[in-house]
């Protein structure tokens, strides 16, 4: 009896859940029909299917005498260990969307952003993408991380949805014709770092500490090591760590010290880098540290003595203290809204929206175009535009999806990033 009851209850719960899952679009459709006449502005955005999007677009047009809504879906990790990056990209994108809407939108269309959590898991990323499809997304701003971006790009290629990733840096992220990116690719960063160190004669003996379980980190390291062979310095030690084991770096540091390294290359994210700097200072290992864009944000780490970061060099497309108008405006707005200094991911997120805007204006996108049409038009327009963004001036793209922009090297001096 007990068992029967239990299975009954569970089965009931399951069907209920299934119904809510399946019924969600039907539900919003009807509610949509209800709200259509009353408030056509923001509320109609709940449309779940292609047709209703068009309908709501029509009513929005009538109400605002504009070109309807343009729906941008975003995907990134908003919970868990990598949440910093996803949230930053989301906030950056949101600021750009607000600015664009205040200035009259894209081709008269109101822009709407829906950012979904993927928990840094490729499988969840696909779920997030499907949820966005149900919502009626027309282009995709994502994913923030490489592995998720690769997984989702297989689906966007199938559906022909235009995808622009802010920070998916692995080579495969833009393998499909419909995918483009804002950031540098990992190989690019690795090679550029090696060239920078070699050409500027920063050191002759270089040690590397990298995260072998991370796509970003090992991707940069491989190209760095390959390019180092052509440069005037040699790699004297390469210490790897993994995501499960990233609090104690004394072994890797000791290895670098014993090998007589003059410079330590850190192609890793800033959380681990801050620990490395602290532990290096504790063991009296005084060398130059050089990193990539992942080190950006190191000055904001809680309980981290920023004086230790003095003299750290990094290759990054974005520096929060740059004095150009665009950066100053972005940093002020971000600070007001979210109470912190934006990092590079936020800047990437911001640039994604403006790049979509530039491409959409070039291609003359309107809200009643289908996702496939938008994708074809935007992919074409991407190769023709040049964008002045936070992460570079005059960024251009070729058909492969790779951006062309100059890396900026900055050094931390007196607690701020200073251009070199």
């Amino acid at each position: 009896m007990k068992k029967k009851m239990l299975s009954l209850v569970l089965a009931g719960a399951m069907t209920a859940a299934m119904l809510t899952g399946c019924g969600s679009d039907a539900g919003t459709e009807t509610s949509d029909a209800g709200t259509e006449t009353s408030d056509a502005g923001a509320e109609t955005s709940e449309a779940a299917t292609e047709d209703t999007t068009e309908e709501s677009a029509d009513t929005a047009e009538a109400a605002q005498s504009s070109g309807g809504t343009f729906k941008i879906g975003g995907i990134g990790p908003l919970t868990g260990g990598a949440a910093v990056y996803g949230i930053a990209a989301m906030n950056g994108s949101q600021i750009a969307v607000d600015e664009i809407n205040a200035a009259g939108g894209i081709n008269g269309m109101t822009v709407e952003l829906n950012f979904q959590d993927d928990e840094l898991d490729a499988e969840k990323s696909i779920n997030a993408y499907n949820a966005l499809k149900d919502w009626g997304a027309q282009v995709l701003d994502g994913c923030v991380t490489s592995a998720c971006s690769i997984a989702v790009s297989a689906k966007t290629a199938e559906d022909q949805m235009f995808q622009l990733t802010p920070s998916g840096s692995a080579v495969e992220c833009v393998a499909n014709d419909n995918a483009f990116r804002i950031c540098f690719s990992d190989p690019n960063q690795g090679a550029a770092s090696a060239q920078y160190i070699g050409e500027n004669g920063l050191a002759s003996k270089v040690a590397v500490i990298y995260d072998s379980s991370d796509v970003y980190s090992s991707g940069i390291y491989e190209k760095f090591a390959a390019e180092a062979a052509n440069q005037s310095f040699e790699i004297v030690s390469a210490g790897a760590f993994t995501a499960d084991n990233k609090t104690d770096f004394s072994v890797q540091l000791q290895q670098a010290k014993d090998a007589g390294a003059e410079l330590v290359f850190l192609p890793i994210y800033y959380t681990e880098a801050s620990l490395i700097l602290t532990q290096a200072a504790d063991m009296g290992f005084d060398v130059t540290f050089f990193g990539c864009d992942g080190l950006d944000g190191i000055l904001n780490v809680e309980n981290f003595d920023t004086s230790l970061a003095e003299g750290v060099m990094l290759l990054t497309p974005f520096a929060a203290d740059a004095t150009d108008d665009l950066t100053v405006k972005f940093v002020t707005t971000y600070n007001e809204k979210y109470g912190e200094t934006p990092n590079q991911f936020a800047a990437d997120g911001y640039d994604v929206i403006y790049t979509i805007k530039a491409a959409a204006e070039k291609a003359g996108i309107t809200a009643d175009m289908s996702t496939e049409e938008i994708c074809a038009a935007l992919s074409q327009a991407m190769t023709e535009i040049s964008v002045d963004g936070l992460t570079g001036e005059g960024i251009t793209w070729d058909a492969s999806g790779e951006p062309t922009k100059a890396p900026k090297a900055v050094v931390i001096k007196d607690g701020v990033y200073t251009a070199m």
Partner: protein
Amino acid sequence: MKKLSKTTKNNLITYGMVILAYIIVQLLVSTGHVSSLVQGLLVPFCTYVIVAVALNLTVGILGELSLGHAGFMCVGAFSSAVFSLAFKEALPSGLRFFLALLIGAAAAALIGFLVGIPVLRLKGDYLAIVTLAFGEIIKNIINALYLGVDSNGLHFTMKDALSLNMEEDGMVLIKGAQGVTGTPNDSNFTIGVILILVTLFIVLNFINSRTGRAVMSIRDNRIAAESVGINVTKYKLIAFTVSASLAGVAGVLYAHNLSTLNALPKNFGYNMSIMILVFVVLGGIGNIRGSIIAAVLLTLLPEVLRGLSDYRMLIYSIVLIAMMIFNWSPNAIFFRKRLGQRFVGSKRAKKEA
């Protein structure tokens, strides 16, 4: 007509439930009533149902707590993904996926067997801890593994992609932490459901077989089982290996649903092992049908809650705790019983009146 035995009837209900669910979903999909979100979840449902049923064999029937099933899933996923990638052009997709399934299941069974030899000498908590360690070891080895193929054959290293020393025409199959990229998307819902039915067929028949009864006798009283001449190590190993190989099948399904495969703590770490254990415990230890329902429910729940944005995971965990209390707390069981009696009682009263 011959009367069916109670277990046969019970098993038929389980098969029927799966087939019915399949038919309903297919009908809904063909009439366009299913959102893309749920459609995208159909294959993950199958994956987790299979692995939950597989773990239930270890936890419920063998009576040992395994926290390493994500590791076996990982082995199945990677071995099959490498195979499919290497023969992407050479074989038609149906045959390739079938072979990939066999390879994934065999690889996971082999690892399960090897892990089982030392692990099954332990009992209770110690066994759980050691399986947890083996699961992590598998994940970390795969994260450090580089495998490539070129005209000279297979290349393999634990250092980095450069030390593979491949010819120009070479292809890197496993790129360390970057995993396998470009696996063909061969899984679909129909294949998933067929695999669930095969899994159920294997597990349910195993339980009701001579071997299954021997395994259960070991679970209930090891000394008594030994005294009647049951080879404890052998039967334990059989159950554990079958369970591992079925987890490998789930891994194959997982790998062929995504075009990228990484061994992250999130998908193949102990978090996943514990998640699978949660499916089993919530569904009822030893209750195969319960595992199926719990796996589907708990995979669906966080996705249905997407509308709550930031509070999603919070609500999800609260629901988990509430369900756990409802299912297992003695007070809740008593309350349910009383509620059930009142319900049945009132019905009976109505009937009489």
